[in-house]
């Protein structure tokens, strides 16, 4: 379960002054649900996800993730979250097995448990052939599979995926979408940020559209279609953020 309450993050920039990257965002994502976070570049998606993953501290407001407060108990939040972003890369000189073992140990798991999880994830994600090769030799798809496995090695209650299919070929992207859906079906709480509207329609139970740090629209895909009188998610998104920007 994720509950964001008036979540706010303000950055101080020497040149631009005060920047309200996230401005009073509130939403709830329940177990067994995929919450889709939509927004243009710089809208505040990644900052919101980083606040939930406790990488950043909120300036105001708060959130609880898996029952723990992000400000008071950041360590316990992280122990229950699997966070994957475009900015969370892998160690090139380690193998996938070593990477998963490392993160498993940091989550306090026993080596026997880690070994079993690694085997299971390798089968589920199709990683077996490259499990013991160094990450630096991987293709983008292999790296993304390993990254996803890294976020799941401790079997977290909450998964946060920030654009997990960026730069992947169709087959690998489909594989990952299927895997994310599988997380939801196992009763996990999932936040999924993406630019790909077809993924939103296929995956997300609830969609939140974020624009200039504010949550400007929220609802199921059907509710948003009804509210904006549009079947196409891309059109809904453009209208929710106030129309297209001047070229």
């Amino acid at each position: 379960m994720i509950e964001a309450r008036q979540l706010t993050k303000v950055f101080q920039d020497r040149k631009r002054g005060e920047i309200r990257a996230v401005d009073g965002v509130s939403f709830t994502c329940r177990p067994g649900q995929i919450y889709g976070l939509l927004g243009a570049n710089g809208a505040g998606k990644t900052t919101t996800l980083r606040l939930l993953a406790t990488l950043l501290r909120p300036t105001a407001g708060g959130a609880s993730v898996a029952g723990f407060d992000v400000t008071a108990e950041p360590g316990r939040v992280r122990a229950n979250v699997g966070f994957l972003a475009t900015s969370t890369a892998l160690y090139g000189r380690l193998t996938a097995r070593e990477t998963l073992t490392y993160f498993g140990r940091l989550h306090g798991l026993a080596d026997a448990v880690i070994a079993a999880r690694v085997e299971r994830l390798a089968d589920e994600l199709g990683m077996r052939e490259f499990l013991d090769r160094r990450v630096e030799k991987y293709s983008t798809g292999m790296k993304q599979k390993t990254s996803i496995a890294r976020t799941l090695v401790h079997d977290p209650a909450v998964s946060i995926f920030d654009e997990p299919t960026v730069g992947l070929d169709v087959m690998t992207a489909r594989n990952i979408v299927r895997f994310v859906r599988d997380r939801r079906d196992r009763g996990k709480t999932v936040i999924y940020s993406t630019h790909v509207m077809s993924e939103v329609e296929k995956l997300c139970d609830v969609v939140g559209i974020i624009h200039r740090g504010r949550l400007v629209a929220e609802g199921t895909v059907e509710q948003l279609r009804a509210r904006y009188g549009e079947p196409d998610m891309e059109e809904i998104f453009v209208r929710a953020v106030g129309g297209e920007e001047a070229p």
Partner: protein
Amino acid sequence: MNARNILTVYGKELRDSLRDRRTLVSMILIPLLMIPGIMMVAVGVSARVMSKARAEVPSVMLLGDGDSPAVHAALAANRRIRLVPAAPDWRQRIADKQLRAAVELPPGFDAALARGAAAEVKIYDYEGELRSGFAVGELRTFFNEYRQRTVAARLAARGLPAELIRPFEVRTENVAPPEKVGGNLVGGLIPYLVILLCFTGAMYPAMDLTAGEKERGTMETILCSPVARGDLVLGKFLMVLTASLATGLISLISSGATFLARGLVMGGAPAARALPGLPAIDPAGLLLVLVMVVPVAVLFCAVLLAVSLYAKSIKEASSYASPMIILIIVPAMMGLLPGLELNARLALVPILNLALVSKELVSGVYHWPYLALIFGSTCLYAAAALAFCVRMFNREDVLFRV
């Protein structure tokens, strides 16, 4: 603080670093080859230059000797110099290194000596030039002996004993232990290299484990694990310290091996045996140098980690860390200055205190109160630097600097 997490982070960083060729080069290869290389090349080249210069019989020109055949004949008979015919361009020849020195005799030199009058001999040389210096040395020896012979002849002519003008002799004898002699000669150089290598050994891993991780995007990956920031920084710090100490230790071992290879490490060997090649040093003192280096290495590692963490890329970190080498070299070099002795105030100046005390340690001199003061004060500086480093790891504006 969670020891298991710290060790897990350390173990991973160690494995990762040992697979990185650049870390291996800076941690093992450079210290392994640098000191023996410098010692062998510096000593070997200088010895070769010296022996070659000594083997050369310097060419010397005698000027104004037309009316002094006696001194000309004596000089021509000296096998340690080669007398060349006088020529008007002697100054240019000395400058061109074709001629090593010239001697100018006053008019009527032989006659002046015969009648007991004072005369002045001038030697022209190219100051600072090794071979010219040797020529001057030979000429001085020749004229000293020539003077003594003249004096002895004059005394004998008057029926007086030679001791009349030489009532006593002066001799100098070294009482310093051979290690002290060696320590003073290279005692400053070895700690200087060890300090420098400890710093450079820490530099690349410190940048790689912080700014490098930011650049590669792995910093955010590790930050979203539940490991506390303090544990994370301590794990990384231990790795950087390992690299720094390994570099220092390897450089010490290689310098010890260099001395051993020359059969010159002290074990009661006389200074005379030690001095022709590399000077003697105290091996126990060398080990104590390593102990004293530990808190300095901690200081280096913590400062380098904090500075590198602030940077967004290895390039930026390098631009911060590289000028710091000057901050290390200056006090370390000051320790090489002759005459600068350790006192209570200097014992509180980091790096300089280590350079000064190390010079004494490799000379076999142990000032325990100073050693304690230096170790204690450096530990305090190191602890402050480490606390600063942990603080930096808790600042999101540093970790997510854009």
